[in-house]
């Protein structure tokens, strides 16, 4: 992997380029150093995630539109760093590829914009791209500043590991890839009972207090394990645990003080990249000075 350059298209979705700048910055910093060149898709729109509750066909059209835009690039596949977008695109692809009626219906809609759906697109997330393509060993050998002595709790998220029938990035009940990637940086990971608990982000549309309480309970439980930080790879989960941590604490009682990082931020630090270029100053939950990375 080190010698050959991989060119891949990237779809950032809405949440990442609108508010989660640290994720975008750190992905843009770390991947080229590991031999992955990113091509930004132009003229993108929403993946259809929130639209699925309103109109399923409209949401499938939106997902398919992104895949059609991607097949116009020279990239060998499409990187989708947001868990929700990754699920929506994979789910729609699974339906189109296995349901003739939907294939024709969507194809017709796309053709109105001069776009065409192609069945052979490979969709990646940051986690499987690094773990399965770049490889853990390469990540390990590229590390310049090992994060030795740190213990992190990883949060795999829900939508990149389930449902397995459509093909997901890791095991639905016992995901270990993010753990392996954190260990490759020289740090340890914590095994904890609440690892598969959901962040609650989707409930921010309808039941905000319950959503915050879900995020808060996980962090509260986690504090007891004495981990140095919390690692995620989804802009929705990250918003809940990082920017909303204070509000989440209020719903579960007690004080929360958990340092939350995007995996790509930690990877960047271990690769010796300046913290500002990784957007560490934008994280709301942790104080890098206190953390002393």
């Amino acid at each position, binding site marked *: 992997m080190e010698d050959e350059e991989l060119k891949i298209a990237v779809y950032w979705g809405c949440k990442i380029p609108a*508010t989660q700048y640290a994720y975008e910055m750190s992905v843009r910093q770390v991947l080229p150093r590991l031999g992955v060149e990113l091509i930004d898709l132009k003229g993108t*729109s929403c993946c259809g995630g929130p639209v699925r509750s*309103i109109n*399923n066909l409209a949401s499938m059209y939106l997902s398919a*539109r992104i895949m059609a835009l991607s097949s116009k690039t020279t990239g060998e596949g499409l990187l989708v760093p947001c868990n929700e977008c990754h699920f929506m695109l994979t789910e729609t692809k699974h*339906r189109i590829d296995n349901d003739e009626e939907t294939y024709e219906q969507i194809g017709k809609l796309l053709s109105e914009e001069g776009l065409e759906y192609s069945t052979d697109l490979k969709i990646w997330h940051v986690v499987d791209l690094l773990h399965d393509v770049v490889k853990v060993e390469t990540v390990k050998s590229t590390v310049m500043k090992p994060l030795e002595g740190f213990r992190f709790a990883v949060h795999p998220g829900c939508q990149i590991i389930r449902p397995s029938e459509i093909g997901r990035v890791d095991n639905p009940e016992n995901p270990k890839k993010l753990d392996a990637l954190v260990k490759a940086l020289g740090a340890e990971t914590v095994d904890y009972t609440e690892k598969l608990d959901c962040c609650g*982000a*989707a409930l921010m549309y*309808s039941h905000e207090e319950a959503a915050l309480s879900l995020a808060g309970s996980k962090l509260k439980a986690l504090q007891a394990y004495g981990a140095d930080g919390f690692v995620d790879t989804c802009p929705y989960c990250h918003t809940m645990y990082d920017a909303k941590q204070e509000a989440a604490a209020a719903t579960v009682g007690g004080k929360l003080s958990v340092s939350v990082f995007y995996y790509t931020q930690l990877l960047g630090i271990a690769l010796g990249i300046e913290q500002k270029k990784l957007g560490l100053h934008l*994280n709301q939950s942790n104080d890098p000075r206190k953390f002393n990375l």
Partner: protein
Amino acid sequence: MTLTDLMTMAKSNEELQKKIRNQLWNTHPDECYQCMRCTSGCTSLKLLELKPHEITILVNAGFIEELVSSDIIWTCTSCLKCRERCPQKASPYNTIMALRNLAVEQEAKIPEKYMKVVAQILETGMAEQAQIVTSKDMQSFNREKLGLPEIQQADDKFKAIFMKILGG
């Protein structure tokens, strides 16, 4: 009033039940044998009393109007555990999404934020607009200041297609 109360009062509606079934693909609520594996692992069980096995049996009994007008269908977090763990491919998650679509179609009361996000997509193509963020030491940043490239938005052609689908 809980769902169980509604069930004792309601009448089955086969027409709407058919509508839900037609919307589902590769999902079989009628194969459900109430093992409750979905409910035992449901993220929204404790806080919001969502019981996915109950949703499934109510659909099978045809109590669709009651479900569509209930807030319970808006309590799902889309964690997808029920879909993963169901031994019968009944996926309550997919049934809930179909019920939400029907609620929109029937102009039932739905959480406002969902309609706001659709309006936002129709306006800009995106569910969210780029914001100015503040660091912990109270400095403001936008994409440009952080060295991130400008977002290239979709043109109006896509919006017309999207609008057409929404309009049915």
